[in-house]
């Protein structure tokens, strides 16, 4: 349920940016949701809806587009890259939950699928990002 905290950060940032850019109207916000963080979409949407109301957001839920970003990892040792969804050994529930809170602890629970190193990069699909804010001046 810390999805609420993330949803709040989205709405607060949209408000700040639209003020900074002096937008009279916010038309569309695109949010990328990294696969690695296993965000609960229903909760996240519900939280966004509540935050829209609480903050009197200039954009409503229909115009916030959520896109799932595949998670790609790349080993710094052997250059192998792989998809999070393809890892052979599935993670335990508590490991998944830890990564849900702080995606970087993936380095504690995951290894390069080729050489076994924990020294890999999260190339994409880590967490929640605002991809773009479109509006009218």
């Amino acid at each position, binding site marked *: *349920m*810390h999805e*609420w*905290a*993330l949803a*709040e*950060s*989205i709405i*607060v*940032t949209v408000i*700040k*940016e639209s003020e900074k850019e002096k937008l009279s109207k916010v038309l569309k916000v695109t949010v990328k949701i990294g696969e690695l963080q296993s965000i609960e979409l229903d909760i996240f949407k519900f939280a966004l809806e509540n935050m829209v109301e609480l903050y009197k957001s200039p954009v409503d839920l229909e115009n916030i587009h959520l896109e799932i970003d595949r998670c790609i990892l790349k080993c*710094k040792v052997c250059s192998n890259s792989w998809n999070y969804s393809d890892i052979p050994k599935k993670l335990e529930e*508590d490991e998944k939950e*830890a*990564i849900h*809170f*702080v*995606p*970087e*602890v993936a*380095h*504690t629970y995951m290894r390069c699928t080729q050489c076994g190193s*924990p*020294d890999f990069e*999260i190339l994409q699909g*880590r*967490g*929640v*990002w*605002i*991809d773009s*804010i479109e509006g009218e001046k």
Partner: protein
Amino acid sequence: MMDPRLTIINKRLENINRIIAVSGGKGGIGKSQTAAGLALFLASQNYRVGLLDLDFCGPSSHVILGIEGAFPEEDMGIMPPLVNGIRFMSITFFSGGQPSPLRGGEISNAIIEILAITRWESLDFLIVDMPPGTGDPTLDVIRLMERVEFLLITTPSRVAWEVMKKELSVLRELRIPVIGVLENMKIKKASQTKEALAGLKVPFLGSIDFDEDLEEALGDTDKLLHTNFIKQLGQTLSDSKII
């Protein structure tokens, strides 16, 4: 691409009266010991205290305070558990005490995540246990925690002064408030630390002796509260009107 977390961090910290980062550049000078001791001392004086361990490579606060079994609650974010009167947050909750070999950019990302989702609520003090160095965690605390003040630790060793002076010069240049320098682990009567700092125009807060019995008190907050270490720490900080 915009990182929404950066906008929310200072909102999450807005009901905290003072944010004190315990730092000093070098490792092993007693940053964690001082941060944990300070949090414990403040809690014993009925202040509302939070302790945030940002040393992801060598987290120690939980070992010093003997924190086991606690876990943050999820509630519109995460609520640091209240352990021995201290609201505590550490990467160990998520890494489960296993190694987390993170590169700097990842440490930075993890710190931002934790700052963005942790609900400290109202506190008198948030004490931040810093890792050694002036790398990503220090640069991020400077960049992201608007009202942070630094408490710098050193030992009576030249090696420690040299590293501390470099950190001080970075903080100065960036106009970050520095509460002062605390000398820790004094062994010999005569120490040259005060003199070595004379030209730096930074308050010298006093010295804490090397406490032979400290090790035995680790992990037990009752014992810790009765160590010479905490007595001297509390005295020094009260004397210098920090608290």
